[in-house]
């Protein structure tokens, strides 16, 4: 009798674990219809040592400043960043901006970026070997991210052919023309920036703040959008949606950072 009860007890426990597994898979599969609105700290809290993070933005525009500030204050080290550029930290703009705050604070161990001409600290850390930076042509970078989000295995581009960039990369010649074979890029988390979201997470952008954001929204396991405003469902015309809400896990309202206010 005790044996039978033990067996049943064991079965129930197994079942419970099994149900948890199913649930956790399901959680990963379906994104909520109504998106939770979380604090910048909750968003930043998802980043651990070693996490790969995509950060939207191009120069000053379309940067998730508020989440980056929280990530800075959280102090997590060894973050792997994918972003267009290293933002500003130079004689003209000595106070670091956006991702430059994380770089200067030595939280970033590696980056895949396209440009760091406005970040003197990043260039110095790079030349001293203090940070691992992979430079990609900008069109190649955005296409690699798109490829990662779209389930493709790679693409062929003429960009960088017959330059030093070609070295250590596979090239393919087709009909006498040489191309570089580029591979997809994905991240654990993408922090993007948009103008307005509706409650279902549909996003629209403003001006040149669009840049890499809609593409990064497709290429990370978790996608959190910092927005100026959240409007009721129905206020964004379905024909005008740029990023459909199915890509979005949660929303953060932008805070009072001076650059956030100007963008």
């Amino acid at each position: 009798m005790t044996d039978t009860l033990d067996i049943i007890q064991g079965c129930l426990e197994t079942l419970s674990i099994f149900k948890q597994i199913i649930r956790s898979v399901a959680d990963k599969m379906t994104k909520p219809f109504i998106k939770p609105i979380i604090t910048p700290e909750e968003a930043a809290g998802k980043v651990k040592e070693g996490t790969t993070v995509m950060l939207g933005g191009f120069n000053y525009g379309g940067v998730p400043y508020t989440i980056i500030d929280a990530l800075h204050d959280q102090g997590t080290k060894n973050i792997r960043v994918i972003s267009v550029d290293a933002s500003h930290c130079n004689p003209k703009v000595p106070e670091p901006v956006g991702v430059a705050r994380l770089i200067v604070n030595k939280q970033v161990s590696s980056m895949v970026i396209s440009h760091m001409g406005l970040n003197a600290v990043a260039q110095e850390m790079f030349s001293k070997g203090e940070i691992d930076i992979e430079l990609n042509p900008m069109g190649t970078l955005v296409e690699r991210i798109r490829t990662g989000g779209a389930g493709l295995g790679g693409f062929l581009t003429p960009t960088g052919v017959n330059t030093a960039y070609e070295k250590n990369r596979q090239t393919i010649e087709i009909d006498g023309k040489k191309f570089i074979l580029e591979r997809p890029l994905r991240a654990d988390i993408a922090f993007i920036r948009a103008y307005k979201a509706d409650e279902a997470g549909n996003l629209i952008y403003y001006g040149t703040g669009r840049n890499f954001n809609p593409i990064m929204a497709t290429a990370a396991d978790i996608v959190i959008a910092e927005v100026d405003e959240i409007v009721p469902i129905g206020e964004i015309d379905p024909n005008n949606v740029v990023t459909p809400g199915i890509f979005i896990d949660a929303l953060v309202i932008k805070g009072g950072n001076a650059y956030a206010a100007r963008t």
Partner: protein
Amino acid sequence: MLPELKEKEARERIAKKIAADLEDGALVNLGIGIPQLIPNFMPEGVNIYLQTENGTIFAGPAVDPNDLRVIDAGGAPISVLPGGAFVSSDVSFGILRGGHIDVTVLGALQVDAEGCLANWTIPNVRTPGMGGAMDIVAGAKKVYIATRHFEKNGGSKLLEKCTLPLTGCGVVDVIVTEYCLIRNINGKMVLEEIVDGVDLLELQSKTEMQMEISPNLKIMKC
């Protein structure tokens, strides 16, 4: 003898069973035919969200049957539900191929023990073309096959190895017919549910696909 069903009854049973199997909140792409019946049979309190490969996110019932500005992939008028959006085909297939869809439900000409699917051509007879199916099976997180168990001539549609040109291979997760539910568990096709009154041995003998029988074989509610 296996109980015979009218076409309508069989199709609705398959649709109903898959409807009952879907997770609440799932983003779903439905193929033409039996899959299109599924929304009618969703259990109370379980919501799924429909994506159409021609660019609707959150498809709903048509408002004006004459308005072809919002249609499904089969050309039937539909609507977009509140919170939905329209996208171009490159984005739509980025969604499908990129694993952003939770579930797709497709019909089959043949499906086999290795999880391969054939549903786009019968050479020299009929070649509708693969349309979006090859991309969808390559990318959806979970692929359901909704199919009658047998051909009109009695031959099994569940084969050991498909003979028709494939749509995808190793892609099928669940097969639902009017007689049973089969799940792909680590690459093995496991019979998990069987309709009450269907003789297991007879079904096995008439099904070319070799199925493992689940130790927890259940009656398929329908």
